[in-house]
């Protein structure tokens, strides 16, 4: 590495700012902390928020895993991984349990993350009230008042018309009994993994200049009526490579118009295919 350049791309002041904002975000679970999102060598909307978090936290001893839709080898993930490794000198992996930093878009790995691991999510829209209250100023006021009735009204409307919520990603969750958080773009399947998790989850929205976090062992409850409990997506089909149906599957359109399914978490699937022992899953209850 060229010593004229700052370690891990960002200059020390930028990293220090982001680390301070991360500490604040951890201290106030799910509260959206504004930060000065820097220009990055990739377009906003492609994971600049997550990348800035990763680069502020990474050190040469870290082991980094980058996934996109659960896959380690998609273009976005491959680019980000190469960049992070290049500017930090950190080792990379596809094993979720080996990684100290996991930058992800869309998914939380299926294997249960441990204390000391940090999951960093790239967030497109950090504001859970965006679709029900277009004004950010008003939305902030509602957060301050803890008034989330708009989200409940929205949920009521969905149950009234469809009998269930149709939200896949961006299903609002109440964190630590105080702030409602947009866990976007996680699927409903992954939300229970946030509840009382051992690892740290950081959310970075580069375009919207917000950082928020779920500290370890924190209450995370999806909003749901008492008599209409929250339900993750049902698993349809089974993985075409492993035959599994106990984890989140990707639907892959086939030429004949049918759908094939494959495990979404690629690192986990690789372990299964190689016959390696995998760690305990988050949703161990659903296992058998």
């Amino acid at each position, binding site marked *: 590495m060229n010593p004229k350049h700052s370690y891990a791309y960002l200059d020390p002041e930028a990293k220090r700012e982001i680390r301070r904002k991360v500490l604040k975000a951890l201290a106030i679970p799910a509260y959206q902390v504004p930060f000065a999102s820097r220009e990055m060598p990739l377009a906003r909307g492609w994971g600049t928020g997550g990348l800035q978090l990763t680069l502020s936290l990474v050190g040469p001893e870290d082991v980094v895993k980058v996934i996109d839709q659960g896959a380690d080898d998609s273009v976005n993930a491959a680019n980000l991984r190469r960049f992070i490794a290049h500017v930090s000198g950190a080792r990379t992996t596809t094993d979720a349990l080996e990684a100290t930093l996991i930058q992800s878009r869309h998914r939380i790995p299926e294997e249960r993350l441990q204390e000391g691991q940090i999951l960093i999510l790239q967030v497109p829209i950090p504001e859970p009230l965006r679709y029900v209250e277009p004004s950010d100023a008003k939305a902030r006021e509602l957060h*301050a*008042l803890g008034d989330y009735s708009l989200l409940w*009204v929205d949920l*009521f409307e969905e149950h009234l018309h469809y009998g269930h919520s149709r939200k896949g990603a961006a299903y609002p969750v109440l964190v630590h009994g105080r702030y409602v958080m947009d866990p976007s773009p996680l699927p409903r399947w992954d939300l229970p993994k946030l509840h009382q998790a051992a690892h740290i989850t950081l959310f970075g929205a580069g375009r919207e200049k917000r950082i928020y976090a779920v500290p370890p062992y924190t209450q995370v409850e999806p909003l749901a*009526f*008492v*008599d209409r409990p929250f339900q993750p997506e049902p698993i349809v089909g089974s993985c075409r490579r492993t035959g599994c149906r106990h984890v989140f599957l990707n639907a892959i359109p086939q030429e004949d118009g049918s759908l094939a399914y494959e495990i979404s978490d690629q690192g986990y699937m690789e372990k299964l295919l190689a016959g390696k022992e995998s760690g305990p899953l988050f949703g161990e209850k659903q296992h058998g």
Partner: protein
Amino acid sequence: MVEERPLLELVKVWKAYGDRWALKNVSLKLYPQEVLGVVGASGSGKSTLLRILYLQEPAQGEYWLNIPGWEGCNLLSLSPYERPAARRHLAMVYQEAAQALRMGFAALTNVAEPLVLKGERRFEVLQKEAQAALERADFPLARAGDPPTFLSGGERQRVQIAKALAQEPTAILLDEPTTGLDLLVQATFLDTLRRLKRQLGMSLILVSHDLSVVRALADRIVVLHQGEVVEEGLADQVLEDPRHPFTQDLVAARL
């Protein structure tokens, strides 16, 4: 009725926009189970008065709500963060339904909203209570799933009334609720309001420029003129025997 303690009371309220006074020393009382009519021409301060009553605007003076938990608390001195709690005891019905309703959400959802705000988290209960409120407001239940965008003017006003009923407020504020409706719809809507007043003993503040609407509902009337209360009294008395020249003009203009 007059010996009773008023439910809601404004005392010497002043409100200025820049250097122009919109309300000058306005006092009024609303007694339990009473309909108070507020009449006046455009620009007389009716809308300002309603916004202050609904705690949407600050003003100088005193505003008391004599219900448990709020005695001795001047609502005009509340901070913006304390106001929503007080506002839950008041419901507002607007001339334009779009001001109160979420036009894209089902009528039923709109009515369920105040219940959600109160903390009800059981879907079935919300649905049942919202339906009951719509029924009380004579809203055709077959259309409960339709959003207000697809409803007629009269039906929208009924949704607003149902929403207000579901909230079980101390008082309902009505801002020209029948303006813009045709006469037949106005008449049936007023019938509903009269029935509700009789059955539920609601306390209403009705603001209107239409004296026939006020006559049909109000027990007492307050006449506003250029931001001042110029006349106050029993509805029949004020309408039959107006004292102030402005009220006389207003009553004469009705013909």
